[in-house]
Structures are given as C-alpha cells and as structure tokens.
C-alpha cells in the first residue's frame, strides 16, 4: 500500500509539537474532563502521559519514522514510552493491524522499512513481542509462510463466517445476496460490469431503485457496504465516458470465500453440481490446490522454526 511522504505539514507539525507540548497536554486533559460522557475510559495512567498530538496527524506525516532520536521532540518520544524498543513494538502492532485489515501478507522488508528501521538488529525480539500483543488483543496470529523471502501471513484464531461482518438493520443475513454477486463476477471471468450484475439481480426480483423486503437497499449494499467491508471492488471501467462501472472480488472475499464455495452456491440455486460447470470447475480446483500448497508451506516452516513461545502476559 502506498504510504505518505514527508510534507510541509509535517514540518509545521514538528515545530508546533516542540512549542506547544505542554499546552496540548493541558488542553487534552481539560477536554477529557469537560465531557466525561463522551470519553468512556480514562486516557492513560499517571506514569505514561500521552502525547495527544492528534491521531490523524499521522495520516499526513511521512511513514518513515517519528522520533528516531528526534531532537525537536524529545518529550514526545518519552511520553510514548520510556523504552525505545517498546515504542517500536507498539508501532509494529499498529502497522500489522492495518495490513491485517486488507489481509495482505507482509514481509520482513516491509516491517523494517516502515517501522523498525535503525533497530533492525532487534527485529526478532520486536516481532516476537508485537506478535504476542497482536494475539492477545485481537486473536490474530502472524506466521512466517516463506522463510526465504521472509514473508508472513495472518491467521485469524477466531473463526468468522461471512454473516458476521454484515450488520443489517433487521439482522437479516446478507450472505445469500453477496454470494449471488460473487458468483456472477466469477462466472464473468472475475470481472463483471455493473449492467451484467443488475441483469442477474433483476432476474431474481432485486432492483437498484427499489427497497427489497429482505436485502434492504441493494444498490447501497453493492456499491457502498460490501465495498467498505472489502468484499467487493467497485471501479470505473478504464476510459469509459460516460463512466461505466465494474465489480470484482475484494480482498476479504478472496480470503474468506473460495471459488469452489461460489460454485457450490451456484450449483445449489441452479440445481446442478459443481463438476458440471466447466471451465469454472477447473478454475476452482486450481485455486483449491494453490491454497493447499500454501497451507503445507506454512506448516513446514513452523516445524523448521520455533518462533512461538507462550504469551508473556
């Protein structure tokens, strides 16, 4: 994922940070005191006064480190943690959380360049602590799947099914609807135009401009909700004027729904069996094989390395 670069705003931020350190802390404490109903927990204990420099200042600063022996804000790094290694652990956990959201595998190089940097030699220790925290707080495991290229993948220790992610107002499962759309996309060579998707949905009595008794607002679900949850990708067809749009499987769909599942769903509603649906059946089989290989590779690396130790807490 592309990351931000150094910006003028960051320089302004740094200057302000150095000048207004105390004021920011005072302000923040006053804010917290003034609307207790809005801030549920206490923010930090007495020993670790937090530097409330604004969360998304991060969005506008460069991704290449803050407080690497930074002379202009010595108090900022102190307030984040007294131990520089701990600070790196915290940053790494946050970095990994973001990568986990999009189910991207992550490499050692990624982690070193974005977070660890000059503490490269302490990488194994930092990674171990970060993995432990990730597991403790989120129930997500980080496994080395490629020991040669130092590539890691996330394994969710909690078992999720598609239903869960979608909190529909009436608690009606959206799974069927999503599966239909994913299946159509698969049938259309993994990329279906918006027209093709609506054609199929219209056949089932689901229309873009009508509220559906079960699925609510189908157009909103397709173009916003499912996209935000990363089950679908909705993009403009290149060079289309007037703009036309197409759908693809999103990263979460790739992670949670196999092509075989989509095929099985299709087979059920069309009263056939998956093996009848060539050439998609062959494509789904290929995907199963690839996933099996990946799982075996992960198992193999686990036997070779003993990285996992019981959680320190």
């Amino acid at each position, binding site marked *: *994922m*592309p*990351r*931000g*670069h150094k910006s003028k*705003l960051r320089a302004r931020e740094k200057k*302000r940070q150095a000048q207004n350190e105390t004021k*920011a802390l005072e*302000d*923040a404490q006053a*804010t917290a005191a*003034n*609307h207790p*109903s*809005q*801030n*549920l*927990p206490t923010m*930090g*204990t007495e020993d670790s006064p*937090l*530097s*409330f*420099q*604004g*969360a*998304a200042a*991060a*969005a*506008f*600063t*460069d*991704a290449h*480190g*803050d407080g690497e022996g930074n002379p202009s804000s010595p108090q900022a790094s102190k*307030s*984040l943690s007294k131990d520089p290694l701990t600070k790196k652990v*915290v*940053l790494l956990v*946050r*970095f990994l*959380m*973001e990568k986990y*959201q*999009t189910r991207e595998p992550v490499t050692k190089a990624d982690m070193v360049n*974005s*977070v660890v940097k000059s503490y490269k030699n302490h990488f194994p220790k930092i990674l171990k602590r970060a993995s432990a925290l990730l597991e403790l*707080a*989120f*129930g997500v495991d980080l496994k080395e799947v490629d020991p040669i290229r130092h590539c890691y993948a996330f394994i*969710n220790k*909690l078992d*999720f099914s598609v239903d*869960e*992610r979608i*909190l529909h*107002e009436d608690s009606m499962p959206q799974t069927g609807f999503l599966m239909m759309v994913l299946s159509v996309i698969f049938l259309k060579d993994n990329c279906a135009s918006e027209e093709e998707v609506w054609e199929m949905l219209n056949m089932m009595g689901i229309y873009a401009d009508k509220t559906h008794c079960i699925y609510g607002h189908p157009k909103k679900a397709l173009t*916003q909700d499912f*996209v*935000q949850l990363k089950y679908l990708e909705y993009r403009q067809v290149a060079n289309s004027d007037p703009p036309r749009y197409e759908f693809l499987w999103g990263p979460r769909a790739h992670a949670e729904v196999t092509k075989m599942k989509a095929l099985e769903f299709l087979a059920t509603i069309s009263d056939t069996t998956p093996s009848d649906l060539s050439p998609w059946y062959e494509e789904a089989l290929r995907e199963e094989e690839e996933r099996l290989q990946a799982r075996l590779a992960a198992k193999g690396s686990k036997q070779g390395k003993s990285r996992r130790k019981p959680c320190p807490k």
Partner: protein
Amino acid sequence: MQSSARRTGVMTDVHRRFLQLLMTHGVLEEQDIQRLQKHCYMVHDRNATVEKLEDFINNINSVLESLYIEVKKGVTEDNGRPIYALVNLATTPVSKMASDFAENELDLFRKALELIVDSESGFASSTNILNLVDQLKGKKMKKKEAEQVLQKFVQNKWLIEKEGEFTLHSRAILEMEQYIRETYPDSVKMCNICHSLLIQGQSCETCGIRMHLPCMAKYFQSSPEPHCPHCNDYWPHEIPEVFNQEKEKEREEAGFSKSSKKSLRSRQQ
C-alpha cells in the same frame, strides 16, 4: 468507575471478536454496538451474563492502553446519535487513513478538511474541493478521478456527502479532533456547551458563539423561550429534538426507513 478502569482487564475471545468486528466496520452506532456485543457473547460464551457495555469497553481499553489505541464514544453532530470507533491516541506514522490511500489522495483529504474547517456551515462544496486538484502533492490527479476519491472517502466513512457538499463524518471528528485543533487553531470552531470541536452547528447572531445541535437540544430542553447562554439574546433558530433511542426504535418499527428519518431531522433545522 475509576478503579475498574485502572485494573488491567482480561481479554477473552468475546472481547477479541468484538474488537475485530468493530475494526472492520470502522464506526458503529450504539444500537449496533450493543447487538455486536451480544453476538460475541452468543458465539463464545452463551451462558455468561452480558457485561454492562461501559464496563465491557473499559475492560478492552485497559488492555489496548499499552498500544495507545482505544474504543472511543462520540456523538454525531447532526442528530446526537451515540457512536463508537477505534481511535489512535498518540501520533504515530501509521494510521488507518495512511495505509488505505495514496499520497495525492491524502492530500486531497487534507484540502477538503481545510475547506470544511474554514467554512461557515461546516460543508465544502464539491466544486471548491475539485478546483484544488492542481495543487495536490504526488501523482497528478484529474478532476474526474478526484470525484471518485471523494466517494471513496464517503464509503470509508471519513466524509459525508449532502447534495454535492462534503463535511466530516463523525468518525473523522472522533479520530482527528486533536489534530484539527492544533493544525487550524485560527479557523477551528468550538461548541460553547461541550467545548469540543464543532464542524456543524448553529451560531448566535448577536455574539457569534456556536453550539452543536444535540448540545443545544439538551441545553434548551426545558426552556420555552431559549436565550443565548453567552449574551442572553433571544435564540432565533429552531431547537431540534433530543435524540431518544426508544423513540427511534418505535419509529423504525412503524415502518420509517432510516433515510426518511434523517430528512425529518434536517427539516427541523
């Protein structure tokens, strides 16, 4: 309770599942959060008593403290609905927005943010934002592309769009309040009642102080003749209703859709 917040909580799979799902959605309304909590109990610990939401969240936050993130509760500016989001507490180079967007997209957001904060209404028009496309850092972006990026911001709940104008989503306000107050100290507006950041609200025509609509609703709840808390002049604007979870439920059951409810409230302004 102060004492229970300080004790380091115990994370079980119930809490972890809750956290993962909240992260997925970005921001959730109180009703959905309650349903989410119950759901997590159903999956992992059917027979356990569902902990009071405030304690449940305090528990999670005491574990997240060491990571400088927390589940934070806020209130929507337009109609006072309580919302929850996972926010960062300290500056770090990595944040939710930074990993989802490219440099020029982040810069577009920054430009839109500046226009929103500077504006009188809390809204920036699409036209004004798009006119700044040439000034963006990073890869060159065309206006048509910028329109799509703005939609991406809406989808990801950083901006809200109303009739071609954009304002900050309550999630963005929760996450970025401190940053906004520090970056735009001259143009930032504050609510006279809750003393936090104000993007949308009403102002007194005499002395210029501002208030959030839900703050005003609560403040003027039992006043037949509302007066400005600062200059005591007669308050000229219509006072909105206080957000009531029970009334909302009744309306929903009576068959109103969420969108028609919103327009009911906006008409009251």
